[in-house]
């Protein structure tokens, strides 16, 4: 499982404070903790409050790179902010993310090619969030076709079916799970799949339980990657156990430790 640690996000108070005070050490501690917990990549998002997001993105990337070699997932709605991060990133990168709209793809696919970056494609458009599996698949096909026509390798594309909070869109859970399975048969080589996990439990009072239950179900549907909180131990344990059941890891008595090594 390609685990993208979600904790470096200006949406969180501690990160927002660190950005405001230029407290590099605070950011670096979060980067190290997430990497140690088993993250394959770290999401980097300046948050909505940043006055100068391009500079903030660069500052964050530089701070993180000083202490870990973990790939970075550069997260912004603004392509120029993403590019600010890409231009100085030393390790592998993931662009987070492109909608299935022509103008977004026109900017971000060439950018991913230029910087040899992976790309997250969202199964949504400016018209809004899809309501069922078929709408999601239609948007995914648009992204895949665009990538194929423009020489972007589809196995470097992560399709996100858009996970919605279970307390407001309960009927969407099943749709998303089925979508994950069907994304994988849209092309050969198959695209990868990713979810922004924490969204499923937004506003509920049992966040960790709902997160890990949904994650395991999505893993059963063939999920390749998730943006999640790697410091949630119960969540990580469930993820690792699911990998065992799916025969993706070889069992040994210390399998939880082995996975985190």
């Amino acid at each position, binding site marked *: 499982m390609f685990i993208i640690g979600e904790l470096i996000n200006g949406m969180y108070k501690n990160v927002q404070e660190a950005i405001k005070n230029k407290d590099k050490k605070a950011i670096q501690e979060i980067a190290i903790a997430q990497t140690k917990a088993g993250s394959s990549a770290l999401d980097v998002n300046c948050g909505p409050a940043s006055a100068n997001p391009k500079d903030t993105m660069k500052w964050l990337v530089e701070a993180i790179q000083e202490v870990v070699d973990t790939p970075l997932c550069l997260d912004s709605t603004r392509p120029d902010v993403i590019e600010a991060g890409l231009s100085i990133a030393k390790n592998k990168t993931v662009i987070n993310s492109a909608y299935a709209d022509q103008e977004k793809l026109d900017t971000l696919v060439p950018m991913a090619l230029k910087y040899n970056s992976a790309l997250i494609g969202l199964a949504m458009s400016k018209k809004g969030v899809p309501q069922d599996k078929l709408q999601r698949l239609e948007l995914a096909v648009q992204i895949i076709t665009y990538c194929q026509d423009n020489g972007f390798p589809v196995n470097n594309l992560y399709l996100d079916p858009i996970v919605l909070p279970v307390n407001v869109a309960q009927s969407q859970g099943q749709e998303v799970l089925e979508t994950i399975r069907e994304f994988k048969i849209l092309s050969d080589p198959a695209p990868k799949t990713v979810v922004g996990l924490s969204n499923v439990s937004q506003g509920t009072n049992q966040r960790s339980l709902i997160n890990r239950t949904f994650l395991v179900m999505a893993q059963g549907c063939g999920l390749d990657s998730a943006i999640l909180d790697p410091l949630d131990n119960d969540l990580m344990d469930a993820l690792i156990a699911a990998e065992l059941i799916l025969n993706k890891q*070889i*069992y*040994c008595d210390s399998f939880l430790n*082995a996975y985190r090594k």
Partner: protein
Amino acid sequence: MPLEALKEKWSNTVDIISIGATKAEGGSRDRAVKVGGQTGLPYLFEESDIPNKPVVAFEISDIEPLDWPNTLKEPYGKTLKDPVEWAVKCEKEFKAELIAIRLAGTHPDNGNKSDTDAVKLIKDILSAVKIPLIILGSNDETKDNLILPQCAEAAKGERCLIGDAVQKNYKTLAAACLAYGHNIIAESPIDINIAKQLNILISEMGMPSNRTVINPTVGALGYGLEYAYSIMERARIAALGGDKMLSQPFICFVGQEAWRTKEAKASITEFPDWGKELERGILWEALTANAFLQAGADIILMRHPKAIEIVKKNIDELMQPITSNQ
């Protein structure tokens, strides 16, 4: 339209283990033997690098082996009674690259040689030959825990490969190998889960993963070869896919398994239809070894010089990358 070959690209590589330290590295060996480093499945040169070829180690013993058939004793003659001369013969006459001394005579039921005897022998062999050394205990837990740390100390700086550590008894040996700069053999009973677990336990003692070799335990042709083969294959695929706790090179104890079989040992008078026992025994050992090369073996312990010759020739042929037709 030409058909494009599908090539597998893996995310992890096999660890590189270095056995033997030269003068420059603080030892006294002529050269070090390196194994491992593959970036793909065995001998698929089209899609992977194989920086180091597999090596054969000559297996010798501190006492004259009682269970060896005459066909196996014959090439070594009277040196069987003197392990130092035996080692020299392997190096000089048979051009051995690596030698494995089994301290069988230290076993309480097999002569019960003392720790002083064992330490002296290791020192004598190290000064008589210049090739790297593998040191093996007698498989008596208590005796091995007494003797192997002292041998490790006596061979300090020579970067030997010492074994075997098992899940129930690994701490003493791992500590000694760590303290005196040696590599360690981690043995599991044809069980991939235990192989992985033991590697974790050893690594948790501070042993770097590039100083451990996996002994997956093998069976000879006709005696479980396929089962061992499939375990090695599965472990190697997991290693290349990213499992760092299975990404160490393999050592296969082929000689002891092959020469234990009736097919290798029985005389022609007993089974006239089976042909001459000499050829039969050599082929049994060579075929078993060749099969494990295909499963990914990096170090093979063998006994008969002729069988070793056949296997070395096979290794040389396997290591010639096939040039593509295109």
